[in-house]
């Protein structure tokens, strides 16, 4: 479920209050400013300059994109986003599919919340939810943060994507 709440305009009172509450781990509200920050998307089948130009053009139209670099030789699209971008990884992969190519593994940096449902941990960026594999020991550090509403910065490797479910491996917490 998308839960995206914009930060109020910055001011000393809000900043101090949020910092204080965050340090105390008492923030129970949904994530603020969650979303993708960087995406390194592997693309199979992209062989020509117009192919890369078409993908670059499509990706630049996505919400909150600050930079796009497409590499034919590496088979990648590398994007970065503003902090209030609503763009999802699924939208990025849809642009690639509509250009006739196949999105594969992606490495993403995102800000979001951690939660748990049916004994499975997930991380929600505000625009989509990434599910961790049940046997991934690396995510146990996240278990304690599930449901707290705490904003987490993490790097994930997305190996398998479907329209309704995305499986992720935790690379690191920041």
């Amino acid at each position: 479920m998308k839960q995206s709440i914009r930060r109020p305009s910055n001011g000393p009172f809000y900043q101090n209050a949020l910092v204080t509450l965050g340090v105390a781990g008492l923030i129970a509200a949904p994530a603020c400013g969650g979303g993708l920050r960087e995406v390194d998307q592997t693309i199979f089948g992209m062989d020509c300059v117009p192919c890369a130009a078409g993908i670059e053009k499509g990706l630049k139209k996505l919400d909150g994109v600050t930079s796009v670099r497409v590499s034919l030789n590496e088979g990648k699209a590398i994007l970065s986003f503003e902090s209030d971008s609503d763009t999802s990884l699924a939208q990025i992969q849809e642009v690639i599919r509509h250009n006739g190519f196949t999105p594969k593994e992606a490495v993403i940096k995102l800000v979001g919340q951690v939660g748990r449902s049916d004994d499975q941990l997930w991380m929600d960026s505000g625009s989509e939810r990434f599910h961790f594999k049940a046997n991934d020991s690396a995510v146990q550090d996240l278990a304690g943060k599930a449901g707290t509403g705490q904003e987490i910065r993490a790097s994930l490797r997305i190996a398998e994507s479907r329209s309704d479910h995305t499986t992720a491996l935790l690379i690191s917490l920041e």
Partner: protein
Amino acid sequence: MNPNLLNAGINAVFVLLGALGALAAQADGHGPAFGLATPTLARGQWSSDTMAMQVNGDMGSSLKFRQLLSYGVTEDLQANLSFPLGQSGEEGMLTGSRGGGSMMGAADTVEASLQWRFHRNASAIGSRYESALFFGVSKPTDDTPGGLEPGTGFTLAAVTGYASRTTYWWLGAGAQTYASRDNARLGNLYYASAVFGWRPPQFQHDYPKPDWRLFVESVYERIERHRVDGQSMPDSGGGKLLVGPSVLGLYGHWGIEGGIMWPVTQSLNGSQPEESYRAKVVFTYWF
């Protein structure tokens, strides 16, 4: 109908029909200049191909200009519309010249076609296998006095191939048939093409730098005898095999391609002019 004019027209039909008929699929994105290739447009993307083709033969030479507009209905279905921009050359070469595909059809036909990529397998970074079917209809837009007039033409072709950052290949085959018109009917055209492409290491720069690739193309064409008033025309039909190089340069949304082919073998029925070479230049813009 004046027999001399008719004969000249039939000869010209064979020269140009043979020259143009095997071009049913366009060289868009990563494709060759003459042979069949798979489509590449993205969903909702337009492209424009403006092309010039010269055919030289025993009867003289002909230069034709043509425009192709293509649209990606989906990433696997592409619609094309091709129409003439003009022509010049020997009268005998131009009279009655008809037929062909969406890329370089006859001088005064409008052609509509669909390309359906029914198979696509991206096997690795920069490479993929894919196959496509091509359906086309060509319609003459005016009458040319003297020559043999074709009716509406219908094309069906198939192509399969491989594209990567270093090598390419495509194998394709197709057929074109014509409706009767004024008691005359062009012979069916059958064709096959094989293309091998290579990008030398010094051309393997990354996007957005220019992208160049080289092709060796071969096309085989066979045309049945034309029929007039129910009779087969002796000086019509036959087969030929052509081979030649082409080069494709791409930069951003622009592309330029040029190629030339020479006949390796020509087996023409009766007395017909032989083809010396065909050359082609295409300017492409992807919107």
